[in-house]
């Protein structure tokens, strides 16, 4: 344990978060992507969604900065709008699965009697490979954005719940939590004020990764034919639509592909940075 022997104060959250150049770059990159998707379309620099079938598959150039798709729609404009949906899916899954995971994990960690059944349930849910479970769920619910978010949240909830439970088990034994209990604080108060505050950081890290995985999973589901229906643009549906033009218009899969890869990569790097910053024990990795 490299840091144990150090006597000086551990570096602050921000110092650690920004110490690694890759984290900073990733964070900037992700913020730029988000801003682009949400701000640029409002400026109406491009006629988004306007079809001009005769211009289909125009390569990137002066008329279409990133080219035109099979309907003669501007790829850049579509990329930005699709990005909103893809980011919503990622964020939606991250928030939903974290919230559900926190509740389940806290309950399991706090109430001994519920721990075993809940833990076994978590184990059972985690035994299903994520794409396989998501595929079945979306097939059953139907391919809308909301259903994809719901299905992926069901897939990732146990992962969060497991982490929350483990952290709760540690935190509940900490002296000041014991003290709070001795002072007569209610279980709910203790759970919310003490435990939750303490376990927020691992959850935040996990949520960042889930955000990334959900965006990847969405693309995968679309490829398998059960994702969001193609009339709703997401980066996943764009890549998938572009597949058949791989010969004549490679840019149709290139740009949304890059958008997915960049977002997922930067989220993962940010997640790494967050983990290091929030958990000083892991500082040795830098």
């Amino acid at each position, binding site marked *: 344990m490299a840091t144990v022997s150090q006597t000086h104060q551990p570096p602050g959250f921000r110092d650690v978060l920004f110490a690694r150049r890759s984290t900073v770059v990733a964070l900037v990159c992700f913020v730029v992507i988000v801003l682009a998707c949400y701000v640029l379309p409002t400026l109406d620099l491009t006629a988004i969604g306007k079809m001009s079938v005769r211009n289909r598959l125009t390569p990137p150039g002066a008329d279409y900065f990133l080219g035109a798709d099979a309907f003669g729609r501007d790829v850049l404009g579509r990329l930005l709008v699709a990005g909103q949906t893809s980011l919503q899916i990622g964020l939606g899954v991250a928030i939903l699965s974290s919230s559900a995971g926190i509740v389940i994990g806290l309950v399991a960690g706090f109430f001994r009697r519920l721990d075993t059944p809940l833990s*076994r349930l978590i184990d059972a849910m985690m035994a299903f490979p994520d794409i*396989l479970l998501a595929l*079945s769920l979306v097939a*059953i619910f139907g391919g809308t954005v909301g259903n994809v978010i719901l299905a992926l949240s069901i897939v990732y909830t146990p992962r969060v719940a497991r982490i929350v439970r483990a952290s709760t088990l540690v935190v509940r034994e900490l002296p000041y939590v014991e003290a709070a209990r001795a002072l007569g604080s209610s279980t709910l108060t203790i759970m919310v004020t003490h435990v939750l505050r303490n376990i927020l950081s691992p959850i935040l890290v996990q949520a960042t990764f889930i955000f*990334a995985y959900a965006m990847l999973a969405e693309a995968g589901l679309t490829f*398998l*034919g059960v994702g969001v229906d193609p009339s709703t643009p997401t980066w996943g549906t764009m890549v998938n639509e572009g597949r058949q033009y791989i010969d004549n218009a490679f840019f149709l899969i290139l740009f949304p592909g890059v958008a*997915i890869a960049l977002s*997922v990569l930067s989220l993962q790097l940010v997640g790494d940075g967050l983990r290091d910053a929030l958990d000083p024990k892991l500082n*040795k990795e830098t």
Partner: protein
Amino acid sequence: MAKYLLRRFVGMVVVIILVLTIAFVLVRLAPGDPAALMLGPDATPEEAAELRTRLGLDDPIILQYATFVGNALKGDLGESLFFNRPVTSILADRAEPTIFLALMSLFFALFIATPIGIYAAYKRGSLLDQSSVTSAMLAASIPSFLTGLVFQRVLATNLGWFPTAGYGGPDADIWVRLGHLILPSITLGITNSALILRFTRASMLDILGEDYVRTARAKGMPERRVILRHALKNAGIPIITVVGLTFALLVSGAVVTERVFNLPGMGNLVVNAVLRRDYPVIQGTLIIVASIYVLINLATDLIYFFIDKRVKY
């Protein structure tokens, strides 16, 4: 120790029953009448009603559930609506490509990731360390079907180094079949090597920080020998762990990879089943794959338990 083993075993049985329950509930959630679905559009309501009775779909739900679990534990997962064959026999036919694909890609992933991970840990903070970690993450950030499509396109169709798709056909011997798995395995292996690389690197860093390694260093043992003698010997445990961890990841990836390369494995089967609304097959695959995962997890834990006596339970 016996007590620990017993506890693990009981836990496993409970988890498998829960897996069955989840799969049961999942398929019950599906809209539409399974009997009408099985008979197709031309069926009369009377025919549908007759089939419902025959399939026991009109029984109380609790009875249906009990029958389902009872049959499943006896190894009967029902019959495919599309193939009119027992789900278990279909799954048995489809297991080989998936198992080989998972093993081969695991092999490729270990082959790529372990040395790089060790080296990256050894040279931590260096440009090589950072770039290898980042590129591994990048590889894992690209949707795997894209990687597969590009590989298929370039390495198989254009360069002709590998078969493009399929599993070799009726008279393919084991070598031909394995030949058809090389490219899919590399595709899947690359995607999954990121996790293994990071895991190896992290556990190497752990070990390099251990007292006995520092002692060895302090005694003036050359770094290379420190790595090979002490550190590598202890990297075995994390690798076993990661194998268990990546199983689910491999199966998930296999679904997409099998689709790209048209391999007749369980992943492709389940996607087809979804597109054909063949619920018994979806259900059966979920159950079998989840149960295998549970067993592998148990096995890795047990190996862990026997190898590493330091672990306290």
